[in-house]
């Protein structure tokens, strides 16, 4: 399942709001995506994990990231719509049975959900958004 994702366009958008978003995440000692484990993830299952994480951001994260700044809201909208555009391509792979989920991908995804649900929803959403560069680094290697 090879997909063109145009990561640098998303990275540019995120780059303009990264400092502000990460500054709103006071918890240093907890991570939702946890970089190390994402990077050491097995290549085989990465299609399923990538799609699941994209859906996680669409379903749970972006909607709780409303800020008082119109500029930041517009940038978040751009990122969210880019995620949707990529997720739709993954959906096609899934429909053609090229994006099946192994046990490891499922476990990893559930770990991410547990990390997320241990925190207050707005704090967790802002932390997940602040960890976008971790996800983009990993998707870029996908």
């Amino acid at each position, binding site marked *: 399942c090879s997909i063109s994702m145009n990561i640098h366009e998303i990275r540019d958008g995120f780059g303009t709001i990264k400092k502000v978003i*990460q500054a709103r995440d006071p918890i*240093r000692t907890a*991570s939702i995506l946890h970089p*190390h484990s994402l990077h050491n993830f097995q290549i085989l299952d990465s299609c399923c994990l990538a799609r699941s994480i994209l859906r996680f951001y669409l379903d749970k994260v972006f909607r709780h990231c409303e800020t008082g700044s119109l500029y930041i809201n517009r940038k978040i909208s751009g990122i969210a719509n880019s995620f949707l555009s990529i997720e739709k391509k993954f959906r096609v792979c899934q429909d053609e049975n090229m994006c099946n989920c192994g046990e490891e991908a499922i476990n990893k995804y559930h770990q991410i959900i547990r990390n997320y649900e241990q925190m207050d929803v707005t704090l967790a959403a802002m932390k997940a958004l602040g960890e976008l560069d*971790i996800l983009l680094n990993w998707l870029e290697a996908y």
Partner: protein
Amino acid sequence: PSPRNVHFVSRNLKNVLHWLPPEGIPEDKLIYSVKYLVYGTTRWIQDAECRNISQTWCDLSRGTSDHKELYHARVKAFLNGSCSSWTESPRFNPLTDTKIDPPAFALSSAEKSISVIVAAPKTWSRNSRNEPNYLHEIYPILQYNVSVYNTKKKTQEAVTILLGYILPVLLTVLIILVSCCCVYRYIHITKQKYPTNLVRVLYYPCSIDKCERGNLLPSEK
């Protein structure tokens, strides 16, 4: 007061923490202590080389050498036995936040060709034998832009500009100046007498010494 503006400055993955001293405190008596944390873990780590230091920077490359992780650092100031609260840095992502130096390169020319040998910048090295790593081992899609500058063409352009624009302009200005000088000399310097048949007509009452100006008209003879 606490240290200010704590932030990482990274080049080729050599990650150095910088900060500003607390406001309004004489710097020479201050000493600092630095800790760093791998984002998402719970332990703040003390860097041995960054303890009780007086400078306002410290090299954390060794502690932050896993470039896939993210980091925070914090600094505390000590003065005469009392200490400030910690000041933390923004989150630091080595892969995206490091600045890449230009590559080293060498030129060699053959009869009809030039060879450009390019080497990726070296990164900070973890091992003591200082065996360098290279950036392309970390960034698989490292790309290079090579530009060629034709100095001969530039001198030709300079000559063209000189002959084509500068000299003609100078000549024209010179000619204008010389002709103005001649006209001026003709009018003012050679004491020319007015023809005798012209009479000065004064058209407003005034005393002689104030009426230097007026029209010269032929007299009614």
